């Protein structure tokens, strides 16, 4: 038995046990059938594929004359044990078996005749011998039920469920059979639709996951691009923090020495004044100690900001939308890219106050980092990048990323947002940056567009809605 078949059966089982709407529809079909056939009871069995053998499993769907009733698993297991009086049928026998109805050749119903505690007269066009054992509910003689009609339901060529009708009379009329066929078709159709929809849902889910992974890996790729620069940005302050701390140790030694010699009981006050050189040294230390600590702190703050920027950028828990300031995110992105920008371009920011928006900060930073990185890469030796933000309408923020770099050829412009399109040398761009940025901005309800002139520069324009949440 292959896995996909197993999966198929378990999907049907799930449908029949979990989906309320579907269960109700099936209940109605069963009830219509039961009523039309003047049956005492209608019940649906599903088929569970356990290894090689299909097994009939009682579902929770039962209809009886009068009211329809739904039995929970507890009642069902109670039935299989002692309290069989719960149901109109007392001679309840539980037998696991392989079905002969798992492959009916004529697509028609199969009637199982019941006589006392024995199953006889198995009607099947294939003429196969009936199996010796069935999971059957043997009706009480007092209810005068003579026949159980089992109606196999097909989906994708497999019997996936069986409707059972417990009927007092064995008289079949053609119109009954017509209705049964018709209802079976309906049942099958809704089952098929349902599984197809479930499959579609699975596919959509899988696509969503793939997209998330793609965004994440592109993010990691661009993180890789900036990683060396970020390391340098951290290394620089680190090197003077390290050295200043070493010097601080020296200063403390100097000061401790001076203080110790001044307050030592062996040296009465005023007895041994500090030499001129020693005084000069102490003056130097006292003058330098505060600026040195200030510089060290500045360095530590720089490292902290970069690390925070990295954290915001690589955030994996970006699953909830937050109120974010796009200006702040742009500043953060620029901090991360400081090492890429400062050696060859001047970055001007003209960030007007704009309202906060509801969005995914890590993703938006990914977009901004991407656009700035593109600008930096477009500039060959030295240039200017200008980033502007403004409120274009009361509901729209407009961001512009302009550079005076080499520009984009007109024939490349139309492909710019296509996945895997890149003009960068192999290995230096994933070709996904802009297509993913496009996706992220669209996901935020915004738009992204580009204008460029070869040799003059490029401008990316991003709009983001900032109006009240609809």
């Amino acid at each position, binding site marked *: 038995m292959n896995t996909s078949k197993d999966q198929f059966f378990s999907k049907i089982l799930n449908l029949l046990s979990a989906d309320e709407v579907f269960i109700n529809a099936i209940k109605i079909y069963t009830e219509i059938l039961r009523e039309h056939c003047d049956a005492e009871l209608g019940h649906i069995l599903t088929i569970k594929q356990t290894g090689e053998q299909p097994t009939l499993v009682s579902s929770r769907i039962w209809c009886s004359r009068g009211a329809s009733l739904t039995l929970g698993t507890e009642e069902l297991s109670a039935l299989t044990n002692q309290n069989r009086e719960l149901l109109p049928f007392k001679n309840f026998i539980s037998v696991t078996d392989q079905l002969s109805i798992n492959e009916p050749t004529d697509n028609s119903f199969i009637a199982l005749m019941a006589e006392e505690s024995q199953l006889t007269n198995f009607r099947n066009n294939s003429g196969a011998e009936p199996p010796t054992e069935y999971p059957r509910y043997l009706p009480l003689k007092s209810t005068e039920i003579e026949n159980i009609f089992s109606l196999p339901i097909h989906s994708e060529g497999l019997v996936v469920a069986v409707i059972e009708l417990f009927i007092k009379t064995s008289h079949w009329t053609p119109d009954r059979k017509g209705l049964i066929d018709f209802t079976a078709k309906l049942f099958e159709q809704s089952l098929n639709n349902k599984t197809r929809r479930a499959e579609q849902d699975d596919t959509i889910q899988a696509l969503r996951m793939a997209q998330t992974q793609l965004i994440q890996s592109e993010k990691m790729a661009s993180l890789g691009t900036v990683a060396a620069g970020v390391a340098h940005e951290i290394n*620089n302050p680190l090197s*003077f923090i390290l*050295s200043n701390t070493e010097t601080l140790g020296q200063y403390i030694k100097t000061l401790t*020495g001076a203080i*110790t010699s001044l307050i030592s009981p062996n040296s009465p006050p005023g007895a041994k004044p500090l030499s001129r050189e020693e005084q000069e040294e102490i003056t130097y230390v006292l003058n330098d100690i505060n600026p040195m600590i200030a*510089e060290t702190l500045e360095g530590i703050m720089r490292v902290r900001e970069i690390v925070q920027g990295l954290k915001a950028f690589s955030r994996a828990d970006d699953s909830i939308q937050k109120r974010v300031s796009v200006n702040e995110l742009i500043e953060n992105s620029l901090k991360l890219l400081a090492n890429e920008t400062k050696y060859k371009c001047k970055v001007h920011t003209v960030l007007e106050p704009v309202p906060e928006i509801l969005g995914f900060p890590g993703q938006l930073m990914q977009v901004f980092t991407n656009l700035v990185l593109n600008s930096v890469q477009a500039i060959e030796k030295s240039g200017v990048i200008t980033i502007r933000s403004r409120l274009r309408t009361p509901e729209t923020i407009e961001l512009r990323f302009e550079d005076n770099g080499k520009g984009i050829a007109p024939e490349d412009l139309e492909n710019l947002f296509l996945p895997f399109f890149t003009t960068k040398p192999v290995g230096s761009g994933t070709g996904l940056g802009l297509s993913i940025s496009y996706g992220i901005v669209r996901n935020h309800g915004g738009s992204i567009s580009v204008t460029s002139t070869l040799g003059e520069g490029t401008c990316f324009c991003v709009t983001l809605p900032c109006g009240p949440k609809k």
Partner: protein
Amino acid sequence: MRYFTLWAKKMSDHHSSVIFVDDEANILKTIIRSMRSANFKVLTTTEPTEALKFCLLESVQIIVSDFRMPGINGVELLTSAKQLKPDLHRIILSGLADENLIDEALKNEVVHQYLVKPIKMTELQTLLETILSAKNSV
């Protein structure tokens, strides 16, 4: 009895100078601070072009340059410095450098040494003093 370390020396005693170039002023300040006890004079600048002028001073025997600086990289700077003053000892001190360029420069003797940041200032000082004493004993 004094528990006192006196480690500043009079600048006028020095006959050798080292010029440090870095676009990060805080690093230069740190160098000035920690090299006060050195037996050479410390000159610093954030401007690569100014560094070249300093090189022309007779006392300057070593140049220590950062790699990444606005407009010019350390190897480019040291190439010019070599042309101006071939006997100058040339060192790159950087946290991030284009390793290929550095390798090439080391091969061509544009750069004599490549040091990686962060470095302990006491170690750097010892190294510079060793180089200077070797140079001056020739």
